[in-house]
């Protein structure tokens, strides 16, 4: 049985004009010790999916309309708030995008690390302090012992993200959700943080969900990938398979938008972008949501009339499109 199994998750936000379908029928699972990457552009529902798992969506206006989230044999959508609180930080931990604002400026780094230890593991103040030093050393903060008493403003962005990782790891969670863990960091720091995450994941034998809009991060960190678009999963495969044989036009476009240092087409070339904008999730059309931006949608009327189902093209490779790459080739031949 997988560690985390999400089935048919729908999270809607109530607005004055109606429900915004931020996450619409999303299913995936994460095996123990593996890393799942969730990719997509801003507003595609990546973060809301993660927050739904954590039970941290802002209620109201958000609510989980249907679906199940099975974690380690527990149905998270049915848990009461007090039970969720015990789970958070201990079994499921989360790292947020912006380390500059994720630490409380009025509390010392030490206080913020020990907070979790004392809450979940019932450690005494002294034990927790000792453990906090170990954790800081584990995420490679130099002179951890002294820096425990520092306030966050004395830490750089990369160091703060390391502290966030230390806090997340403090109780040896089974699952770590990293929501854009490197987006707010300098490029030079990004790789270091990613490597650290991967190393610690292995050491602590955690499963991990990495949420990102950066295909490079996925390539580096993820075993399996879910590509989301407009609240839906449009493609799902192992990382190798996805980069090797992308099927969905959107995935192809995302990969095509990756900047390269030594582009075959020369350096002066402009960055590729995907024309158009994602659909309004307030009242999405009953059609393929990617159709307006899809270069292949004109081929028949099907795309603008009926929404394609997620289907398994190859074992483990799921696609929601009427024009996956492999079938296009067949048509052309």
């Amino acid at each position, binding site marked *: 049985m997988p560690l985390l199994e999400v089935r048919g998750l729908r999270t809607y936000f109530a607005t004055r004009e109606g429900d915004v379908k931020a996450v619409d029928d999303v299913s995936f699972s994460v095996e123990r010790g593996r890393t799942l990457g969730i990719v997509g552009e801003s507003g595609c529902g990546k973060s809301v999916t993660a927050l739904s798992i954590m039970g941290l969506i802002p209620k109201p206006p958000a609510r989980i309309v249907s679906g199940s989230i099975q974690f380690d044999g527990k149905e998270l959508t049915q848990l009461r708030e007090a039970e969720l609180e015990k789970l958070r930080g201990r079994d499921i931990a989360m790292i*947020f995008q912006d380390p500059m604002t994720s630490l409380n400026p*009025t509390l010392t780094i030490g206080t913020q690390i020990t907070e979790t230890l004392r809450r979940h593991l019932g450690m005494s103040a002294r034990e927790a302090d000792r453990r906090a030093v170990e954790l800081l050393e584990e995420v490679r903060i130099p002179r951890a012992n002294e820096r425990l008493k520092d306030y966050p403003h004395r830490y750089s962005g990369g160091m703060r993200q390391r502290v966030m990782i230390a806090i997340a790891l403090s109780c040896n969670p089974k699952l770590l959700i990293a929501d854009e863990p490197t987006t707010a960091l300098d490029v030079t720091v990004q790789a270091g943080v990613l490597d650290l995450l991967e190393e610690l994941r292995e050491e602590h034998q955690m499963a991990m969900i990495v949420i990102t809009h950066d295909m490079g991060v996925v390539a580096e960190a993820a075993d399996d990938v879910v590509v989301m678009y407009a609240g839906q999963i449009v493609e799902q495969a192992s990382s190798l398979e996805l980069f090797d044989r992308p099927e969905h036009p959107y995935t192809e476009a995302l990969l095509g938008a990756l900047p390269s240092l030594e582009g075959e087409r020369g350096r002066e070339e402009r960055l590729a972008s995907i024309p158009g904008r994602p659909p309004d999730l307030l009242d999405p059309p009953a059609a393929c949501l990617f159709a307006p931006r899809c270069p292949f949608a004109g081929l028949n009327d099907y795309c603008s009339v009926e929404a394609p189902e997620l289907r398994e093209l190859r074992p483990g490779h799921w696609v929601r499109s009427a024009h996956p790459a492999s079938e296009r080739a067949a048509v052309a031949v």
Partner: protein
Amino acid sequence: MVVNPQQEELRELVLTRTGGGVDAGAPIRQTSLWRDAWYRYRANRAAVIAGGLFLLLVVYVVFAPILSPYDPYAVDFSQAYQPISWSHPLGTDQYGRDLFTRTALGGRISIGIGFAATIAITGIGILYGSISGFVGGRLDNGMMRFLDALYGLPYLPFAIIVTQLFQTVNFWVMVIALTIASWFTAARVVRGQIISLKENDYVRAARAVGARWYRILGRHLLPNTLGVLIVFVFLELPGVILGEAFLSFIGLGINPPKASWGSLAQDGRDVYLAHPTMILIPSVAIAWLILCAFFIADGLRDALDPRTRET
């Protein structure tokens, strides 16, 4: 010496940069929030002077009655209306009581009531405002509409009614009277702070590690409102002291023979032509305290909430 603000900023920048670097060498002197605040406060000369004058007033109020050879309540008509002299630095009143001693005692009461009522106002404001802001939603809406209704209550008539409800008007009755219709703004200030603070990422991060609501409120939200609240206390203080002085002046204050500055001024009102010092001295004391509080509040705002400074 006035510190060049640009130099100051540069120093801060260098401190954070070198402190934040991965390979920072020698340990760097800790700059705590409060020390930083103290540096900024010191840069405001008016606030420093006001702070000194305020302390002077407090020292006078605390020690003058202890050191004074006169009984502040002993009536001796032979000594009535003494002018200012070495033996009576502020003269005597109509009963021959030493005004230097009585003004200090009155100051204890005025300042005491002022601070007690301000703290009560802030306390109620914290309680009401933090519940309203933290819970949010319908409860927040209901509590705020209730507050809107209360805002219509006139402050002084309500204070007067309270003083009339009790047999004797003592210290605590005055505190209640001054608090009962003046905590609404405090509640709104706290609510606003809590609402804006609870959207912070670190609150979400705290929730993500399973922190419970009282921990989030007590550890992550309220301490962050402290700076604003301290400033609020000193901004609120003059109004409260003035309110107390007014009630005492119209004879609704603390019962004689005890006196506050307001009732001392009232004593002097009847004879203001013959003995103007009797009304002038308590008035100056009130003005002294209020001005000090305003300048201190100004300095504290610069010191504790530096964002407002960047204009």
